[in-house]
């Protein structure tokens, strides 16, 4: 893990850099941003709401949470375990989505900029 030296990790950031404003306003980048944000922002709100709901239920709906479902396992446990399950699922879903929809778009822009401007590992 420590054999390959980092490339160009020193030196001043002076270089004929790309026009980032132009890139930022390009359709290609807009598409990348839209894909990313329309996925992660609603999902973030969803899991925070779901978690807060769980905390509120634990706080204020003790009777409901105490209902036994299987043996000694009650609703509170099912909900708690459901938080684990949703966390794992959201993580898995995001990684699949990112690999399929976000990474290729980001890579394309990066490769274009770096071949045009040689910005690899600057600064």
């Amino acid at each position, binding site marked *: 893990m420590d054999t390959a030296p980092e490339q160009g*990790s020193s030196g001043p950031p002076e270089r004929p850099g790309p026009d980032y404003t132009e890139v930022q306003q390009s359709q290609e980048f807009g598409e990348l941003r839209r894909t990313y944000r329309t996925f992660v922002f609603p999902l973030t709100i969803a899991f925070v709401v779901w978690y807060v709901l769980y905390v509120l239920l634990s706080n204020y709906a003790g009777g409901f949470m105490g209902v036994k479902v299987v043996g000694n396992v009650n609703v509170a446990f099912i909900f708690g375990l459901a938080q684990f399950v949703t966390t794992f699922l959201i*993580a898995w879903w995001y990684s699949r989505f990112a690999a399929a929809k976000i990474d290729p778009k980001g890579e394309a822009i*990066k490769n274009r900029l770096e071949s045009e401007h040689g910005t690899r590992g600057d600064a």
Partner: protein
Amino acid sequence: MSATYQLATPAVQLAAAEGASEHRSLIITLFSVFVVITLVITVWAGRRTKDATDFYAGGRQFSGFQNGLAVSGDYMSAASFLGIAGAIALYGYDGFLYSIGFLVAWLVALLLVAEPLRNSGRYTMGDVLAYRMRQRPVRTAAGISTIIVSIFYLLAQMVGAGALVALLLGITGDAGKNLIVVLVGVVMILYVTIGGMKGTTWVQMIKACLLIVGTLIITVLVLHKYGYNVSELLGAAAETSGKGASFLEPGLQYGADATSKINFLSLGIALVLGTAGLPHILIRFYTVPTAMAARKSVLWAIGIIGVFYLMTIALGFGAAALLSPKTITDSNAAGNTAAPLLAQEIGGGADSTGGAILLAMISAVAFATILAVVAGLTLASSSSFAHDLYANVIRKGKASEKEEVKAARISAVLIGGVAIALGIFAGNLNVAGLVALAFAVAASANLPTILYSLFWKRFTTRGALWSIYAGLISSVGLVLFSPVVSGAESSMFPGVDFSWFPLENPGLISIPVGFLAGFLGALWSKDEAAQGEKYAELEVRSMTGTGAH
């Protein structure tokens, strides 16, 4: 790591007093083996630490899996291991609630923070916050906030280490406890100054493996005892606890009254939003080569940490089922020794060889856990001191790489020294407030600034300063006037009462204050020159990885 992690004065020793000396030598042997092996690795890593990138970021050559292990090792502190198991053992279901907050929190890091941070920063959290802002004021604020969060967290771990180790080794005198605090401090300084990020990362990876294996052994033994039937385990726990079905329902710890319920909500929100603002976690994302590897680290971390927290259920309820509440509280009032006691019990009891071996194993794992976490915290605060404050504020970016790394090493020694001194003088401090405070400050001061910087075009230097300082002052200030510091029996200063804020956890107020202050500060600003241009650069780089370090 959690507010359950209260260490009362360890006046009472482990139940197995008679076998104590055997346990002690076994614990000390195992622990020494860990320290020697990790120090050898540290020296090896130190020889391979040539430049600033090696020191701060481990050369950015760790794989996603390696870093995922190290992130887990950095995050799962003795508090989550011992504190949560103890909280479950004493309060049943309410203890389990912590695990959930600590795990769900990782989604914030995964979805919003890890990748853009990796793409746009270099060594510290301040790199990202200051990217599009005026460097000196923002780096000063980021450095102060990093050091405050890390010192609170570090202090809690040091105080915990002293009390815990003393308890497990049966040391009652102050001199022995102080010796342990000094020892932990010295080893942690050696890890950081010699091994830098490379050494620290390896220590954290080894510790994560030990912790998982140790917890897994106890979990399997507990489940085996109950025929792998969770319902039966829960039933036995409810019965032995003497609290019946209510032991398995929410409310035993936090359901007392309206204030304690709101307090719990406040804690829950700080836990979920704090993790992605903890500097010692954030700098771990710089140790991998790409944003995709950073994503992979978080995915591994979520898997490892999730499985670990699931196992704390077996540990906590196992302790509740197999040990009487009196046995647990006699050993430590807050339940922090429930896990080691359970290990001893499940291994065959106090006088058995099996019990002695398992107790020694779990105790050694607990020490390893403390060491790995304090090393991560020391590294985070000394990196920020050297890179943000020394190199960019004091020397205005004119310090050479060599000088900067030297400053980082010196500050690691100084911060370690401060932690040792505080750990000794803070003796019997209630660490609960400190850890909750670290999470609340991270969620109130750091997270708003990180999110605004990355995602909000109109954010400005003034907005960044306002959100950091308002979040910092409101969270620290509210704790100062809360029952954590004065006015209650469990306060730091139980004799006086200047408290007017009823909640122990300030997050419910201070997190919105941090977000609101950043928003207003940005609206209040005149257009900064080149503001849009710098944001364009940050946004393109953070989203695509163009020109990443």
